[in-house]
């Protein structure tokens, strides 16, 4: 295996291209928690790891006027201790465990192979913007445009930065995460309800094979979450049946809405 440590975005993009042109399969490397695990299991065969943490803007965290600029390589622990909006802390705080969060990066959570990507829930609710480093240059766009089931990065591109504005004063929210075994586990259902009375959104992980969101929901609709139309059927696996997940979803929506101060 080849391990590369670029110091700039340009170096990283060039390294990816050079290795791909040489017939090797490069993999972006951030906190490493997922890549190392998958390599050990043999489900990921990386001939080249390109470690992005040496790029200053990839690991930078700035509090500016009206919001945050977060390098994709910033660890979840750093973010949780940095004073980001409480809604982010509520949703990202339960991801993995504290020691893993010391290494697990925001970019790794958003762009990894695991289907949960729970950090995307608050970022979508906060209308985050993302900056992608692509062979064509830096590209800035709303996260909700880029994130469709997953980050959808083209080969040779990576997530460089996330920008989060402070929540609007009128934003109300509530969150509920349900696991099978205990707090340190993947979510069977993780629901974030956010919005204002009469116009709510749900951001959901665990229920379906990938994170989904539902928008422009009324209080009346949310009073009967079991009747909500999902864009994809709930998943069924060894952890939970489809019916059980749907029941948890119903309860989670009610609890999240109770926290948010909306319909219950």
């Amino acid at each position: 295996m080849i391990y590369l440590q670029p110091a700039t975005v340009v170096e990283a993009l060039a390294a990816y291209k050079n290795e791909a042109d040489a017939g090797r399969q490069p993999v972006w490397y951030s906190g490493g928690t997922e890549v190392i695990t998958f390599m050990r299991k043999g489900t990921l065969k990386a001939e080249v790891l390109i470690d992005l943490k040496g790029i200053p803007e990839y690991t930078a965290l700035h509090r500016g006027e009206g919001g945050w600029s977060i390098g994709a390589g910033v660890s979840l622990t750093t973010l949780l201790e940095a004073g980001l909006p409480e809604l982010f802390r509520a949703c990202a705080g339960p991801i993995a465990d504290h020691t893993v969060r010391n290494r697990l990066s925001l970019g790794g959570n958003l762009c990894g192979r695991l289907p949960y990507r729970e950090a995307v829930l608050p970022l979508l609710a906060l209308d985050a913007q993302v900056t992608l480093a692509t062979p064509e240059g830096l590209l800035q766009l709303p996260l909700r445009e880029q994130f469709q089931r997953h980050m959808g990065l083209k080969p040779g591109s990576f997530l460089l930065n996330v920008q989060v504005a402070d929540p609007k004063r009128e934003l109300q929210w509530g969150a509920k995460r349900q696991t099978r075994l205990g707090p340190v586990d993947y979510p069977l259902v993780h629901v974030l309800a956010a919005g204002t009375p009469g116009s709510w959104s749900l951001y959901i992980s665990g229920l379906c094979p990938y994170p989904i969101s539902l928008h422009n929901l009324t209080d009346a609709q949310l009073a009967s979450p079991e009747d909500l139309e999902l864009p994809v059927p709930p998943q069924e696996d060894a952890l939970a049946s489809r019916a059980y997940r749907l029941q948890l979803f119903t309860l989670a929506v009610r609890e999240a809405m109770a926290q948010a101060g909306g319909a219950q």
Partner: protein
Amino acid sequence: MNRYDRPDQHTLLINGEGRTVFFSPEETLLQVLRRLGLTGAKPGCENGDCGACTVLLDGVSVKSCLVLALEAVGHPVTTIEGLQNTAIQQAFIDHGGFQCGYCTSGFLVNAYALLEAHPEADEALMTDWLRSNLCRCTGYEGIRRAVTAAQEKLKNPENARL
């Protein structure tokens, strides 16, 4: 740009001492530490779940099975062997903070990091940190007593060193 494409000799700063060792780019910090004879960090799950391999990297607790050894070059590493004669070690002895002992080094390193970072850690914070480690003997009560006792002891200025 640094490029590592073959096994090579590197120097790691471990417990305040430079240790030169030969390893491959794909080897984890845990594998290299154990080859150096620092076997306190245990290969439990090697999946980031159990915490038995916890060490400090730049003073931050990490699971060494989830860190490439190359990532530790230039960054100080502290293993359980570097925490001898500390208040937290004594507290684990005094308060029965272990049973079979396999998880002990991971718990102890993590507890050390916790009390270094948050000497006034409350119940919730302590729980959040210590959830990172598993004890299959289920000796959690003794571990918790030990950490709380070490925390109390450190409140006395005469015992300021962890």
